[in-house]
């Protein structure tokens, strides 16, 4: 999708968080991305250094956890792995399933680096 602009809004969120908490810099920035989110993890990684340059997150590292694609079957109750173009139950073949995991594009956590003794706001 729009990985550079997504990275820029990610960096905005991270920068805001760092400022609010009085952090001097940022360590790990962890995302969780699912295969049905529309976000391409590799493109996010490529765009990240461009978006973070010159910010408090300039030295940070982007970690992307890949969320598995999993559905829960409304017919038989099984929770099974699926593929983006086939979200049917792997146990009974029913197409009445709910996505349990797989469309996430979440900022999970941010590691803030603060000088010893400064306060959490």
């Amino acid at each position, binding site marked *: 999708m729009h990985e550079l602009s997504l990275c820029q809004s990610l960096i905005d969120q991270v920068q805001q968080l760092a400022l609010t908490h009085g952090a001097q810099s940022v360590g790990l920035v962890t995302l969780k991305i699912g295969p049905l989110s529309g976000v391409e993890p590799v493109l996010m990684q490529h765009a990240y250094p461009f978006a973070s340059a010159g910010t408090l997150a300039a030295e940070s590292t982007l970690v992307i956890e890949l969320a598995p694609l999993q559905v829960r079957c409304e017919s038989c109750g099984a929770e099974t792995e699926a593929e983006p173009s086939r979200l049917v139950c792997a146990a009974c073949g029913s197409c009445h399933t709910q996505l349990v995991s797989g469309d996430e594009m979440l900022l999970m*956590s941010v590691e803030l680096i603060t000088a010893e003794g400064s306060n959490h706001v």
Partner: protein
Amino acid sequence: MCDTCGCNITPGNREFAYKPVNGTTAVAVLKSLLARNDDQAIHNRQHFDRQRLLTINLMSSPGSGKTALLEATIDALRNEYRIGVIEGDLETENDAKRIRAKGVPAHQITTGSACHLDAHMVHEALHQFPLAELDILFIENVGNLVCPASFDLGQHRNVVLLSVTEGDDKPAKYPVMFRAADLLLLTKSDLLPLLDDFSPARAEANLRNLASTVPVMQLAARKALGLQPWLDWLRSELAWQRARVDRGETVRPRPQADGAQLHEAAK
């Protein structure tokens, strides 16, 4: 504690919350990368609900017949409902002009290089638009089967069009888009006899494989063929929308997975 991060967002996350270790603190956030857009979309939906109007986002590849469908719909419902249209295109006022020629208010958003509409663009447009005088507002998104699906605009329903010249495998190739459909329209059905390889049944099967149970309809807007089920769908959606608003409720288009996402993330 602060508003920007998820310190102590739920008991399950407490372990991630503020914990200084050698000057390094991990804060849990659990926010969508599109949080800013999603917040704006919620605000837009409040505008629509305040006016008791039904807002529908039309998405498809370029040229699948979105504007033709709107023209035929306006002709058919002219005496029944007050309709307005927000048009999104990279360039030109062409589509808005086509709608205005039908005597209906239309606002053109030209996105320049952006290949989708976002909630901020729509908000700007709706403040220059006679919302109070409408029953149904259509938003014709930029022709594109990829990113428009990810941007909530504040609409109540997504309608995805697939013209029969595009191939019946498109739901399998663009699952993010077709999963977001509250209704799938197979358009230009007058051309089906000329095509030997488009099977409406196969298109529907590919949609069902995405665990979607939404209705699928065939129509040909330019020939005014098969419009009735679509018009009835609009009528009942508007009635439901008004009943919801009167109960103080609203509805978001498919897929509504945020709850599940946050639940998962909190595990």
